[in-house]
């Protein structure tokens, strides 16, 4: 690789110091509200897990070859990742843009929209990676057998969380008002959440729904986590992981485009 003289070089894109600055802001802010966020991000999936695990668990003991509580504990990991990345991304982005004018301050510094979005998504992905492990830990307490594969779960969570965070940023960038978030939540997020094999296997659903589920990143995340816990399934998991990476990269660019449209006129 040849190095161009300074005057011919493009002004740096995706610079580490710029992304780092955005991350530092988030991390320092997090120190002022981590308690409530951690509470809701860990307690909520735990409640789901216990309610479904014991509620349905009393009716069905084995699903898809797994103990039902084990089935739900692994499935809820993906849900926890989804909720702890897409919602803070949607609301956080909108609030920082519209009400706190934080982005005006950041973009006046040597930080571009691309770096801003990347930093925000990286931070949410890290958070989701950690919060996503909560259901698994609760599951372990309730009898889920530990396995080495589970050590891959934070990495799976990170990749999925990055994609969801970018999706949330893109939604916030695309929608005009915060009241419109309801449409997205009801029409997009809820179906994605339910048709992902989290609480029940997809095999009972009509075939066209099963086919559509293949396009649902949450489904691939659920599959991966389950296989990490109960045993990898070779190429199927390579595909699941590849799908999440493609999803993340795609939504990353969509989020940047949406925010550039919103922030730069």
């Amino acid at each position, binding site marked *: 690789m040849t190095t161009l003289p300074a005057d011919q070089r493009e002004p740096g894109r995706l610079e580490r110091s710029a992304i780092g600055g955005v991350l530092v802001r988030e991390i*320092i*802010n997090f120190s002022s509200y981590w308690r409530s966020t951690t509470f809701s991000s860990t307690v909520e999936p735990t409640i789901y897990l216990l309610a479904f695990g014991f509620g349905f668990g009393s009716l069905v003991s084995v699903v898809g070859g797994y103990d039902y509580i084990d089935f739900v504990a692994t499935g809820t990991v993906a849900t926890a990742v989804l909720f702890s990345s897409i919602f803070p991304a949607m609301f956080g982005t909108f609030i920082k843009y519209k009400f706190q004018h934080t982005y005006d301050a950041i973009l006046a510094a040597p930080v571009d929209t691309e770096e801003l979005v990347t930093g925000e998504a990286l931070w949410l992905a890290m958070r989701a990676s950690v919060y996503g492990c909560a259901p698994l830990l609760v599951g372990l307490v309730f009898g889920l057998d530990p396995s080495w594969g589970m050590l891959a779960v934070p990495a799976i969570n990170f990749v999925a969380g990055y994609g969801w965070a970018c999706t949330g940023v893109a939604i916030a960038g695309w929608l005009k008002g915060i009241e419109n978030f309801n449409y997205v939540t009801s029409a997009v997020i809820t179906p994605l959440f339910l048709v992902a094999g989290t609480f029940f296997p997809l095999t009972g659903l009509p075939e066209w729904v099963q086919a559509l589920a293949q396009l649902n990143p949450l489904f691939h995340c659920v599959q991966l986590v389950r296989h990490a816990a109960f045993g990898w399934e070779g190429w199927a998991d390579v595909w699941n992981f590849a799908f999440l990476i493609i999803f993340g990269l795609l939504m990353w660019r969509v989020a940047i485009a949406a925010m550039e449209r919103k922030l730069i006129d």
Partner: protein
Amino acid sequence: MNDRAGCDPFDVPSTVHALELSHVVKRYGDITAVNGLDLVVPEGGCVGLLGPNGAGKSTTMRMLTAQTIADEGQITVLGHELPGDSKAARARMGVVPQLDNLDTTLTVEQNLVVFSHLYRVPKAKRKDAIERVLGIANLGERRDSKVDELSGGMRRRLLIGRALIHQPQLVLLDEPTVGLDPQVRQELWALIDLLRSEGVSILMSTHYIEEAERLCDSVTIVSHGSAVAVGAPTDLVAEHAGRDAVEIYGSPERLIEIEAEMAKEGFPTRRTGTSIAVLGLDDAAGRAPAGERRPANLEDVFVLLTGEEIA
């Protein structure tokens, strides 16, 4: 009115301009917010961008950080062409926004830490940079206070201090004292004056005439998106309003009559709300109307040049 003809008020070669806009245009649909604006801030100078609401001041400020992209014209900041090279310019420039966008749940010091990272202050210098700003903003004792707990004046000082964390060569101040009481404004003026004395180049948008008169070496008066006058405040007053103004009071009907009479005589006038100020009387000799005589000021020029109707 044509101060722009041939008009660099600073008589310095263009290479040392901290900031230069030439023939800049920005349209939003049918609305032309900035319409062929020329503006220069020489290195080390303090320039006021003066204009009524809606004159294009805020749009201009946003263009200098490339958050708004001009449709036409050229913008150079600290030797960097915008918008392509904007990031390099932003690294050496401090921006004080009109709207307070501090992180309110963080402490004073935490806000500065965040910005020391965003502005890439090297790790070894961060601590000193923060101490320096706490000193400038006189917030040393409040370093651990949350921004929520600060008074309006303290928040503004922090907002200005935050923009100085990386010792910028150029500072943009967008309406720095809007909505503050006189005591706080004086405090901030002292702070801005300190920057000026340190050789920092400053562009300040304002619609407070006194602020521009006290702080700026030169002002550019903008109306409907373009510059209508450029020069040192005292020169502008001398040129457009003359030494003295005569204020004539009367009923609203009477004021309208006076306006017409003065127009016939060829004297420029401007309304003050309660009276008519007659300007341009330097050569009037005996033709000057009777009334309350006072020195002409920048406000007279401002109202004269930007029109009286509220946009």
